[in-house]
């Protein structure tokens, strides 16, 4: 009986340790993205200032330093970078605020999102300059008020989930490209992405403003939504779930069986088995 009692004492200890571990892990995983002051839509730049000739000139200077090597003088394009003549403010704003430009590596390589290299003022200047090169799309005005969350969800699942996944976690495309996670995209960037269709993404210019605003609202909701079930596991579906089930769930259970199975075995060998308390057991 004594060894059995000892075993039962082990249970709460292991339970406590396990619970503490899981809590420690889960609190570390729920750090939320902080909102960016009062620029909730993510404009970064002042739309009124984009026509300012002073900004265009400052932008041209920056462009000569950081962009001509690929996009050529006046943005006419080179073998390592496309023409920007009709790229427009929307495209420049998207590529610069998502940190995709300046690009590194070969032109075939996907331009990934990274922290912007330029300050907000510099981005304003560069956008003003690229916009002045020809006529492209202006930076769109997001109006979440005209959007409809549920309709946005339907549209999102029908048109975006195939690449970005229903949960917005992103996914692989062929040949080393991927549709990025939409975790960090700001409302303006989402709107712009749909207008310009960056990289392998198609443009969704045929959508009405209301539809686009609805999708923007839905993606915002996906970003804000906390995970009622606990740790999100990256919202990547059955693959991480399977790994957790096998490594933590099954691994933990096997460890439990090992510890429990081991204890008594050792006690037996050490000759600590108690004698003659069978009556108590009956």
């Amino acid at each position: 009986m004594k060894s059995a009692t000892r075993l039962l004492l082990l249970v709460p200890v292991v339970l406590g340790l396990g619970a503490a571990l899981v809590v420690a892990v889960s609190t570390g995983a729920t750090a939320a993205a902080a909102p960016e002051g009062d620029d909730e839509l993510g404009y970064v730049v002042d739309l009124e200032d984009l026509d300012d000739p002073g900004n265009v000139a400052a932008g041209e200077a920056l462009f000569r330093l950081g962009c001509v090597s690929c996009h050529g003088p006046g943005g006419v394009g080179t073998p390592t970078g496309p023409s920007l003549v009709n790229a427009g403010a929307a495209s420049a704003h998207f590529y610069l605020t998502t940190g995709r430009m300046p690009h590194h590596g070969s032109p075939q390589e996907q331009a990934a999102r990274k922290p912007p290299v330029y300050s907000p003022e510099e981005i304003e200047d560069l956008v003003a300059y690229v916009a002045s090169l020809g006529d492209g799309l202006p930076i769109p005005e997001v109006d979440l008020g005209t959007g409809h969350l549920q309709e946005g969800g339907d549209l999102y699942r029908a048109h975006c989930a195939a690449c970005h996944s229903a949960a917005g976690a992103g996914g692989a495309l062929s040949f080393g490209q991927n549709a990025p996670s939409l975790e960090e995209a700001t409302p303006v960037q989402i709107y712009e992405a749909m207008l310009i269709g960056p990289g392998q993404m198609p443009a969704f210019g045929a959508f009405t403003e209301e539809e686009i605003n609805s999708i923007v609202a839905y993606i915002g909701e996906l970003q804000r939504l906390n995970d009622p079930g606990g740790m999100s596991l990256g919202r990547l579906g059955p693959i991480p779930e399977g790994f957790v089930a096998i490594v933590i769930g099954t691994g933990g259970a096997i460890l439990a069986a090992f510890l429990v199975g081991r204890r008594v075995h050792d006690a037996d060998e050490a000759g600590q088995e108690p004698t003659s308390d069978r009556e108590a057991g009956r």
Partner: protein
Amino acid sequence: MGAGSTVHKATPLSRRTARWFDARLGAASFARKALDKVFPDHWSFLLGELALWSLIIVLATGVYLTFFFDASTEEVVYQGSYVPLQGVEMTKAYASALDLSFDVRAGLMMRQIHHWAANVYLATTVVHLMRIYFTGAFRRPRELNWLIGVAMLILSIVNGFVGYSLLDDQLSGTGLRIAYNIAISVPVGGTWLASLFFGGDFPGPDLIERLFVIHILLLPAVIVALVGAHLALVARQRHTQFPGPGRSERNVVGERVWPTFAAKGLAVFLLTTAILSALGGLAQINPVWLYGPYRPAEVSSASQPDWYMGWLDGALRLWPGWEIRAFGFELPTPFYPSVLLPGVTFTLLALWPFLEARFTKDRREHNLLDRPRSRPLRTAFGMSTLAFYTVLFFAGASDVLAATFQTSVNGLFRTFRILLLVAPPVAGFVTYRLCREMVRRDRPGASAEATAVAPAAPDDGAARRREVAPEDAPEHDPASTAGVARR
């Protein structure tokens, strides 16, 4: 209380109750026998128990879910408390899954424990199977229990798939469509099979109802009956044991069920329950509200099956797009990876005890287990089989791996195709060499046949007779909770 009692001083109520039942049922001798049963004490013998306990958790949480789940394809407009889907048209099945997640008390917790427990149940079953395989516990007289095990494994995989297909969210619909395409790829009977299972074309109106009956009644009943038979056989044939001092082919050395083994079982049950509850409460699984209602024209990236189907998905991805016409039948691409592969897999698995007996010409009874190293060929074959399915499993995860580690899916496919051919023989060869080496170090000069601890070779008749001696010892030794029992 015991004032008027004629028996000794005070007889506790519990004992009097027990006697009352015993006088009518004669249960005491059965109970005493059951409680005195000896169970060998190696920890790996608890692996089967892990599967059993997780199965019990699956069943318990499943009962709770059936109170609230509404398996109907009738269209409704969602009015529950999950805002992003309010006003969206969906089937009652999906709506009730959302209600379970957001509006039923403890519903999400139960859903999650159920799903985690199902995944862990199948994983522990496979680990248990590996224990049986690598120690040779499937040999005569336990071939029948091996077959029951294989049947449970197959049925459990199917039931798991049917389970997550019930919810009628985008992910489950995607999985069902693939299953439908696989069913119709079967030559001759395929279309008939598909319409039987799916109730006509996909997605048919009866599909969810049909799946529901299969999932909560049909398969669980069969699985539970098989578990009963499985355990009854273990009890009847008695458990195998590793060789060791005092252990022979004809006895069982270990602990009595009461109290030691029962305490162990309880501890393992509580720990398994704790792990599954912790997962269910702290880690999100199958967040169906994010996937949206099933719409046949849509698909999401990262649409994968649960892990125990992952190897089939991997095979489907790696298989080159061949369509072969033979004997007037067309064999569409999904046939090979999705019908032929599992068919061959489970047939070979089921037949293994018989194949091995034929191959080794060893048809004797075996109650003493092999150490894996002392059967290098079997162990090597097992490891190379594991390597094969592990590669397929990872191939099924290729797109998520590619996105997570920023590499190319096409490159991963190429790598996995090569690995699928290279990894099994390498794993087998390395295992074989390791086993031989370990045996050599265990006992220089000994043959691979003898195990390190067994004092006598199983074939040595004289030695066996000497070892049988413990049989003559009283089976019920009141001085000890440890025990020796005769088979």
